């Protein structure tokens, strides 16, 4: 069986001051994913190797990591693609603090998702009213953004998030925008302050790499740019409303 050299960044907070690379030689065939290889290493070579995973089918978003410096889902990336180079380097997901080996602290990402309220707000319908109907056009507006699996690969790729860790980031903004576009939702005004604010959409300089690395083709870059248009309109509306209020007084 063919083998591939895998250089994995190891970090044990109890011992190490910074991550160090450890090499492993892993047997593989055409179907061996990075996640399979990590499982092999944990079972046979380094039982203390730490990484996150769950579904093995690119739906849970747990196994994000840097493969040769590019954010990837380990379950959706195959060793065969690195056969030419003869080696692959794995590191913990970029731009996040490393807890141990390939595990990062996603607290900021999760807090941003929570703060942007990704759920239907202000819909007064009850189950007795029946299903909330939507036309195909209404669904098409936001459908693409519902594919996000919260894997945070877009955060690992985004240089603006790397430079400013307070930035709400591509994933959570896409999710907020998805609910802003939903005809069943009335919570846009609750989300706009954060989207307009110093941690919001204006941190983005349209690098666009978030959409390139997204494993579900969500296109967060498009969501953020469309959100910028919304933000500008929201600002214009607030100026006009402020002017009207002054006139009334």
């Amino acid at each position, binding site marked *: 069986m063919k083998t591939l050299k895998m250089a994995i960044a190891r970090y044990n907070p109890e011992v190490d001051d910074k991550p160090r690379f450890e090499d492993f030689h892993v047997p593989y065939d055409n179907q061996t994913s990075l996640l399979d290889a990590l499982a092999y290493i944990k079972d046979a070579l380094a039982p203390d190797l730490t990484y996150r995973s769950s579904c093995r089918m690119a739906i849970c978003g747990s196994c994000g990591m840097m493969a040769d410096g590019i954010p990837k889902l380990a379950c959706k990336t195959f060793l065969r693609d690195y056969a030419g180079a003869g080696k692959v380097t794995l590191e913990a997901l970029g731009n996040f603090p490393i807890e141990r080996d390939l595990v990062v602290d996603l607290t900021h990402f999760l807090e941003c998702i929570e703060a942007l309220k990704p759920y239907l707000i202000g819909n007064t319908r009850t189950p007795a009213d029946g299903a909330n109907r939507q036309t195909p056009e209404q669904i098409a507006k936001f459908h693409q953004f519902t594919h996000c699996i919260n894997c945070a690969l877009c955060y690992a790729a985004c*240089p603006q998030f*790397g430079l400013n860790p307070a930035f709400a980031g591509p994933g959570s903004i896409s999710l907020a925008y998805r609910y802003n576009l939903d005809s069943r939702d009335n919570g846009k005004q609750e989300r706009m302050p954060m989207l307009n604010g110093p941690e919001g959409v204006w941190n983005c300089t349209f690098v666009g790499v978030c959409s390139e690395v997204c494993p579900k083709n969500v296109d967060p870059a498009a969501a953020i740019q469309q959100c910028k248009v919304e933000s500008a309109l929201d600002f214009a509306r607030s100026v006009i409303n402020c002017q009207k209020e002054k006139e009334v007084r």
Partner: protein
Amino acid sequence: MATKRKPYIREMNSDWWRKLPYYRFYMLRELTAVPAIWFSILLIYGLSALKQGEASFACFVQFLANPIVLLINVVALMAALLQTTTWFTLAPKVVRLSECCAYRAKIALWGITGLATIILLFLAL
């Protein structure tokens, strides 16, 4: 028991953009602003020369004919074309168009640019 957590934060160096081809192209795209500034200043200089009279404008035209200025302007043109290409690719994303419509919008934008260029060249030459 005290926590054993010691999260390691990786520093982002100023050469971060050299790591991936995508970042390098992004920086090139942003760098196209520099030749645009040059050409803006050149245009203001030209307008000012035009206002000051024929002799002054002749001096400006002579300045334009300088090989170094010509070379910088060729670079500025290439940069403007690169910026236009990236903008026409990105613009349809901003206005939420489907993939098919986005392609048509891109063709239309290039068509308008081509037409405007031909009209301007026709008027200028």
